[in-house]
């Protein structure tokens, strides 16, 4: 320490000393980000548990053309999800889930276009893009309802488990493989589907407020941005579910 210094030094100001926003984002947006981070942990827990249970089960290692459903090994997903609506009996592995992925990505695009329109205070454009986003979300939910029905009811030849014919799946019995596989299907896609449902509700709320001019009176469309973050997160989770549940 130099004792010669006599000039009064101004204390070093940090952005964290208050008065400014160090993260350059509003309170609402930050809270949405950290909520989404915690939600990401929840989804990670589900997917990681899937990884744990799957790697604890034997995999199918015969030729893929001779594949049959059996509770003895973990199923090959493309053999489980190979149906599409209105084409009964046609083998179209993963096509339907591909369509669902396309729908969700497109609804994410329309959402981000609504956010862009909001920045410009363009009420008509926000209304248009929010409506498309809601349509996309509802279509996705409809697809998921069909997929669940198909999975629960089951088709084709039944699997014989302990001398009993098993069609479809529930939480204790599974035509396609070990019961754990069906449990994870219901929990992971169900938890994601619930997020899509609440996302559609929030999107509708935003649409309603836009139509009634709430954000014009407020002077900004930041709510569209916040709900947009949530909606993109739902799309992001689906990208991971698609890879870890359907592809791998």
């Amino acid at each position, binding site marked *: 320490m130099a004792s010669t210094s006599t000039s009064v030094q101004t204390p070093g100001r940090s952005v964290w000393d208050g008065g400014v926003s*160090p*993260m*350059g*984002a509003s309170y609402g947006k*930050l809270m949405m*980000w*950290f909520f989404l*981070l915690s939600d*990401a*942990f929840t989804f*990670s827990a589900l*997917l*990681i*548990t899937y*990884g*744990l*249970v*799957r*790697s*604890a*089960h*034997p995999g199918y290692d015969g030729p*893929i053309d001779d594949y049959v459903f059996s509770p003895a090994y973990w199923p*090959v997903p*493309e053999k489980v999800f190979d149906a599409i609506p209105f084409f009964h009996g046609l083998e179209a*592995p*993963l096509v339907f889930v*591909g369509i669902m*992925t*396309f729908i969700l*990505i*497109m609804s*994410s*695009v329309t*959402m*981000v*276009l609504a956010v*862009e*329109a909001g*920045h*410009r*205070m*363009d*009420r008509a*454009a926000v209304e248009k893009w929010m409506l498309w986003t809601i349509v996309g979300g509802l279509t996705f939910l409809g697809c998921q309802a069909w997929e669940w029905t198909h999975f629960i009811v089951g088709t084709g030849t039944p699997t014989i488990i302990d001398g009993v014919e098993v069609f479809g799946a529930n939480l204790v019995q599974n035509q396609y493989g070990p019961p754990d596989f069906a449990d994870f299907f219901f929990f992971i896609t169900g938890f994601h589907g619930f997020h899509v449902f609440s996302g559609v509700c929030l999107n509708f709320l935003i649409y309603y407020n836009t139509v009634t*001019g709430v954000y*014009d*009176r407020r*002077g900004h469309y930041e709510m569209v941005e916040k709900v*947009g*973050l949530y909606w*993109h*997160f739902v*799309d*992001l989770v689906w*990208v*991971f579910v698609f*890879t870890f549940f359907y*592809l*791998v």
Partner: protein
Amino acid sequence: MASHSHEPKVTVLPPDKAKIKKLWSVALILLIITVLEFIIAFTVPHEYETSRVTIFILMTIVKAAYIVGEFMHLRHEAKVLIWSILIPMVFVIWMLVAFVYEGMAIFNTRL
């Protein structure tokens, strides 16, 4: 809340053409990667399971980066916000590695 009949004067700005074009190109990239995933799923045989899984995970990370970076706008936020979101995900990666390893250990003890 009392309802007011007078609506505020709102000036609508013209569309930001460059930004909209950028958003559509990100959408195109996401769709192309998804199509590539499909092609790999049906052309690369199941015997190459390790390389299949590696490619799928890499493509998923690329897609996630585009969604979070561009759609959620995180790439253009303050550095401290970017790191506050990304660093906690390190725990998730570790948890994934640890639990899949644990699952393989359970598999071996069951044999």
